[in-house]
């Protein structure tokens, strides 16, 4: 029983971190129909920024989120205005190609700036745990999960309670309708992309604490994050959270009860099975074109 509880706890903790990482990716797709394959590279860029801040000032990486998040917001804004905006009306496949090329550019630039060697951010608690009875809760995962919850709640409040947030949601659901009621859809798209990239500010800082990273680490993350948002439903923020928790718990249970060899495979089998029954994902909305295709 202890083993089962331990597996669930570890899965939920890492799932919470996955949710934070996947939220921006889902938001960007939901509003803009852009599949941002550079999202993993943005995470690693943020991890490198955290590393530089930590080594230069000794600032706790979780506090450094207050710097990396606005920095990544500004970076996302510039990137959207300079490149993504130009393929706004193009099919989603164009966004895959463009953002993948951006990921390669970023990988090369990060290699030039920080070097192509492994880096790690090690605050005092990076390898410590809380102990509750026979259970252990790794401190870095606990703090990372708490930050993830805080950021996700803030994101949800922003989307649900502010005019800009409502404009983003309106643009996601019906861009033409949003235009009719006075929403500047183009400006909203810029804002959405920047917010989506800003979430990697927090996500990257946590990645930097949990795992060693190098410029090429983004490949590892983008495949997992795409899996999460497909499982949850492309474009659905609650779906991204549910998908992330399921993948986290799935990985942990697989590692404990089947074999660590299957840890990365089993969640994708789950995704495959879910999509057979619900092609739109667990919480994704069925689009008009999906219905027409039936």
């Amino acid at each position, binding site marked *: 029983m202890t083993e089962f509880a331990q597996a669930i706890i570890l899965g939920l903790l890492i799932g919470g971190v996955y949710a934070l990482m996947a939220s921006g990716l889902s938001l960007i797709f939901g509003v803009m129909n852009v599949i941002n394959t550079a999202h993993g590279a943005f995470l690693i860029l943020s991890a490198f920024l955290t590393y530089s801040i930590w080594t230069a000032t000794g600032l706790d990486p979780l506090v450094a989120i207050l710097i990396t998040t606005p920095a990544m917001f500004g970076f996302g804004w510039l990137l959207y205005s300079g490149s993504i905006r130009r393929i706004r009306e193009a099919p989603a496949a164009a966004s895959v190609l463009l953002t993948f090329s951006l990921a390669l550019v970023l990988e*090369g630039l990060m290699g*030039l700036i920080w070097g192509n060697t492994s880096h790690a951010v090690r605050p005092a608690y990076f390898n410590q745990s809380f102990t509750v009875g026979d259970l*252990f809760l790794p401190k870095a995962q606990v703090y990372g999960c708490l930050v993830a919850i805080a950021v996700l709640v803030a994101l949800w409040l922003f989307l649900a309670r502010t005019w800009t947030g409502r404009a983003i949601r309106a643009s996601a659901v019906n861009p033409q309708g949003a235009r009719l009621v006075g929403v500047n859809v183009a400006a909203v798209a810029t804002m959405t992309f920047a917010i989506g990239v800003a979430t990697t500010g927090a996500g990257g800082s946590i990645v930097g604490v949990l795992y*060693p990273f190098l410029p*090429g680490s983004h490949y590892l993350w983008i495949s997992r994050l795409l899996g999460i948002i497909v499982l949850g439903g492309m474009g659905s923020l609650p779906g991204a959270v549910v998908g992330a928790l399921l993948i986290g718990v799935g990985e942990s249970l697989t590692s404990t009860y089947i074999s660590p060899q299957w*840890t990365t495979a089993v969640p994708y089998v789950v995704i495959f099975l879910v999509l057979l029954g619900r092609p739109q994902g667990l919480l994704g909305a069925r689009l008009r074109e999906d219905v027409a295709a039936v």
Partner: protein
Amino acid sequence: MRRLRWCAPALAAAALLAAGCGGSDNGGGSGSDSSKPIRIGASLPLTGDFSEPGKAAQQGYQVWQKMVNDQGGLLGRKVQVVVRDDASDQNTVVADYNALISRQKVDMLLGTFSSLLNLPASTVAERNRKLYVEPAGGAPEIFDRGYKHIFFAQQATADHQGDVFAQYILGLPPSERPKTAAYPSLDDPFALPVLQGLREKFEKAGIKTVYTTKYASENTNFDSIANAVKAANPDILMHGATFADGVNFVRALDKVGYKPKYFFQTSAPSFADQYSKGIGVENTEGTFYAVSWDAKAQTPGNAAFVKQFNQMFGAGEPAEDAADAFAAAQVMQAAVKAVGGIDDQTKLADWIRSHSVNTILGPLRWDKTGAPQGQFLIGQWQSGKSQIVLPKAAATSQTIVKKNAGA
């Protein structure tokens, strides 16, 4: 608008070039015109999962090129190493070596990094009867295919990497000798055979296996594995790792609060300060690893290699992978010098098979399959520094410490 549409791919290409990847494609000739350099092609994982050792290997080849050219070249001709980026991908590495031979028409080849990539790449070389000396591909299955042109430029194949360490453990007094062992490993053609070799020897000597598992290279979550190791409580823990998984695993062991009496890990601990920075220098103490090269070794040319490396790439200790790549090029160079030509590369292979070659790793010799017939050095982290502890003749530290002296 049209110009901007091309902006991102152009930037991508620029960054790749800046990162040092992508080979030139000028279709240079392969003839023996002495005014032309000898062009030597290699595909390396400059991006992707193995980019870190891939870049180090590129540096090793570059240092060799510089030193050979400064000394007048090879057979009176300059040498030019042409490197392509295989992005750590098995399909790309095959395409790269085909392109190097048929399109870029290089004169000779050097190997890539990792058993995973050398397995398919060496098939291209064999089919084209090209000498293929590789710096980092010690999986035993590479050498049981009957190939005539492949040689591994380290001391031993993976299944023999831990031989010296096994001798040490089995030679301990009964009171100190471990009674139980655990063998978690990355599912990798290099890491697994190291552990299999050690496990066979230990089980034969009566050391009971209490835990064994494999995990995929994409695995990032090691807390569950560390928890299972703690529950099994082995006296000696043997971990088959590359780099990131090695660091993550040690972090996870710390998180569950487990320190074995003896800890041996493949590859990761040989990454010098990247390893100590990844896990914290205080957590390195007592960790054993097998290594092919030591910066302080008194092997012929080693000091000159380190000096040239520092001149080209700045201060600091070169990575082991850079030294291995340099040694691979030294083996090829020795064969070319001895045979006196590069046209018949089967002759070059025959020469290597029947001779020992002095390299910065020490003297290397091979059996008829191209598998090396030497012994690895055994390193151990002590007081924040990596030391060679075995064999005694090559040791930089005469003491051996326990990972957890209280266990």
